[in-house]
């Protein structure tokens, strides 16, 4: 053990054994486990769609758009999905993946709200607002 560890033993840490500490999960910790599950699901869904797209791409031999084409807007992706174009399926998987951090910030806002922490709820909503701004700028074709 090297020296220099931050010496903060909060009241909640004092007088508890290591094992008990690892077992004791306050409510917000359980919420974080829920967040972790949501994230895992999002990532798995994205990966599954991507793999489906790759399979379609291999099956067809090409991505279904004249070069160097691929859909960039949500509308184009949806149209491409209906026509079963591999590049549109891949793009849909990427969109799901790109949305996971946004979902994560939104979930964090919920955690802070449940904890009754107004300041951090507001702070997280501000970050979420900036995210929405960035995404909408792109959506408007900026």
């Amino acid at each position, binding site marked *: 053990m090297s020296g220099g560890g*931050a010496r903060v033993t909060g009241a909640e840490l004092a007088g508890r054994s290591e094992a008990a500490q690892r077992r004791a999960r306050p409510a917000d910790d359980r919420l974080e486990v829920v967040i972790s599950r949501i994230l*895992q699901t999002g*990532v798995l869904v994205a990966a599954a769609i991507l793999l489906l797209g790759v399979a379609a791409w291999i099956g067809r031999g090409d991505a279904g758009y004249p070069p160097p084409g691929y859909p960039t807007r949500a509308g184009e992706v949806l149209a491409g999905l209906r026509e079963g174009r591999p590049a549109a399926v891949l793009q849909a998987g990427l969109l799901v993946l*790109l949305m996971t951090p946004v979902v994560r910030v939104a979930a964090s806002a919920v955690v802070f709200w449940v904890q009754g922490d107004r300041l951090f709820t507001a702070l997280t909503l501000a*970050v979420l607002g900036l995210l929405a701004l960035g995404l909408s700028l792109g959506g408007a074709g900026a």
Partner: protein
Amino acid sequence: MPFDPATFALILGISVVAGFVGSLLGLGGGVIVVPVLAGGLGFDIRRVIGASLVSVIATSSGAAAAYVRDRLTNLRIAMFLELATTSGALVGAYVSSLLPVRVLFLLFSALLLYSAYGMFQRRHLETGARVPDSPWARRLRLEGSYYDEAMGRTIPYRAGRLAPGFAIMMGAGGLSGVVGIGSGLFKVLGMDMVMGLPIKVSTATSNFMIGVTAAAGAGVHLARGNVDPMLAAPVALGVLLGAWAGSRVLPRLRGRAIRAAFVPLLLYMAGEMFWRGIAGS
């Protein structure tokens, strides 16, 4: 575009490595993905930037579940600093119009060189450096604890030096926004060197933050057509796999080993930035 198994497999393999390294160090993996795709494979730089953005988000999301479960990610510190980096990016866009890009690259280089020295100095340190107690950190409860598997005990911590930490994050957010890389690197450096957090907490919290920062720019990149699915899909799949593997390894690693890994990386990046500043590209 026809399916080319060789290229696909190559991008996938490189991306697994990028995700693995990125998840351990709190970086996006762009450091590995960009030079290989743009330099080695000759892909158009715009599409490489789009793929790099996807790589950052995949690193963040691929490692997220494990880091949240292991209590390595500190949500409060992440949100507090995310405010600094996002506002820094806005200020940076303004400041960058006042300074030539070459000067920014040289500044970046000097900062990285100094960071390499700082990391080297603390290479024997297992947890966080001692920092003066901060009443603000106490008030905002920028603290936590995690069970360190490598050390076999619980490590409590509290952030220190909030004002300089916040300022550095703003500067780093601005600088990396202009230069286009290094946002994860500076987040880790700020938390580790300035705020005195344990290195694992720094990398895991940075891992969360880089995903949020990258998502903010995702809409613009998508609309500009920078996200080429034929390039970004193998990157995403590979990085997800690599990041997931890395997130399983990090808890068992020694803090010293993680710090040691940063030194050559920082030196390499400093050299790269210096060269760009001199060459003016």
